[in-house]
């Protein structure tokens, strides 16, 4: 009988984390910024059909970077969980915090128990009636949840992007200001990104039931001008 080689658990975890991080770094990044009228989520995405940012529920949006099929599966799981909860209880009872916890447990479970970890980083954003009620939950491939209050960056070069956005950030941002800051941070010093390279959606602080809205190319161009 052959015995498998002993590999230290630390090494196993490190290898998995490296594998996931490499996968995520291959894709393009994404930023979410809170502004006076809601939350804007901006992704670098040349495709206009394969979405990175989408609606989960009335006031909740989802965004993912990394492997498309994996975060899309997570997106659908989120829509299902939210719709089921809203049906069984009430629409008001669906919130981003519990959804983020569910995502964290799925990702944590997959990270430790499956053959390969998910090569994704996801964002669950919720717009509240007041700015103080806005929520940004950034969840990593291993199930780590981070709760941000002004902006967050997902993707490979998150640290550099975070620093750039930190520098540009102001708490009096309107939509155009927030979007410009996000785009500049995503582009970095050596590149410029046009309206056609982006996918942008907002969660608006409105009285309408569904707060999620995609910005079409002409509107993106007008805001970036």
């Amino acid at each position: 009988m052959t015995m498998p080689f002993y590999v230290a658990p630390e090494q196993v975890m490190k290898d998995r984390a490296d594998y996931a991080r490499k996968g995520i770094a291959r894709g393009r990044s994404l930023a979410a910024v809170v502004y006076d009228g809601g939350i804007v989520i901006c992704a670098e995405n040349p495709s206009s059909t394969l979405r990175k940012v989408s609606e989960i529920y009335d006031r909740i949006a989802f965004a993912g970077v990394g492997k498309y099929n994996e975060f899309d599966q997570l997106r659908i799981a989120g829509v299902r969980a939210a719709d089921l909860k809203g049906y069984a209880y009430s629409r008001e009872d669906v919130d981003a915090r519990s959804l983020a916890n569910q995502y964290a447990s799925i990702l944590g479970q997959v990270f430790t128990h499956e053959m390969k970890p998910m090569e994704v980083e996801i964002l669950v954003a919720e717009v509240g009636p007041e700015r103080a009620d806005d929520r940004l939950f950034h969840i990593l491939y291993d199930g780590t949840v981070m709760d941000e209050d002004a902006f967050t960056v997902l993707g490979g070069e998150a640290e550099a992007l975070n620093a750039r956005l930190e520098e540009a950030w102001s708490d009096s941002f309107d939509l155009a200001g927030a979007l410009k800051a996000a785009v500049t941070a995503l582009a970095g010093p050596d590149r410029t990104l046009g309206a056609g390279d982006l996918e942008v959606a907002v969660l608006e602080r409105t009285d309408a039931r569904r707060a999620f809205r995609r910005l079409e190319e002409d509107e993106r161009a007008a805001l970036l001008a």
Partner: protein
Amino acid sequence: MFSPTDDPGPNFAELLRRVGLQPPTPATSLDGVLTITHGTTVVAVRYADGVIMAGDRRATSGNLISHRAIEKVFPADRHSGVAIAGAAGPAMDMVKLFQLQLEHYEKVESSALSLEGKANQLSSMVRNHLPAAMQGLAVVPLFAGYDLARGTGRLFQYDVTGGRYEETNHASTGSGSLHASTVIKLGFGEAMTRQDTLDLAIKALFMAADEDSATGGPDLVRGIYPTMATITEEGFERVPEEEIAGRFGELIAAMSLREAERTTLIAETTSDHGGLQA
């Protein structure tokens, strides 16, 4: 999360079945055992800009009025509406599930269903409800919407088995539907204006309430009027209550005037007659 071969896809009803939240079907007939609350008359009429849907506000349990102000006309999504008649509890649940199903599909698939697809979806929901209908909980909805692809309003009527019938001009369901649809049939014209169509629907509901005890007329004491909504290219929009109240006022004034004329006429004839006798 489901495995790819076992995935319910964008189907919310199937998802409910999987997680065991599907509403149960009563095992025996409820007729005569329990009194069931029923909703009554709803109508839909096509006009120049789309469709108008309207419904009275009464719910009855046997021969008692159980609610004076229930709603029977609901938005299904942005460009369609659903109106219900039949057992009120299951009907409300069916509407809630239908609204959710359309939104769920839209979110999972990132595109909305076609109007035809929505109508078929409702048809399968009514069909799945058949076992409950057999036990006395029948629900018969109306579905109407603005077809963005064709640029016109469309309406669909259903039967209790889930049969789906597209109507060209108008549709109605519920206990007062016979009277309501006769009024609409006589007054309908091609490409009517919003105002004329609202007036026609109001007259239809008034006449249905006049003949059918389960249909509620305008409640002038409490200020409760039928609910009405228009569905056009701009989407589903409720007609403001003041507007409905105003139009009902006009109808009632016109009918009172006619009635008064008739009574004077009768009085005159009888007094003439009396004069001859004397």
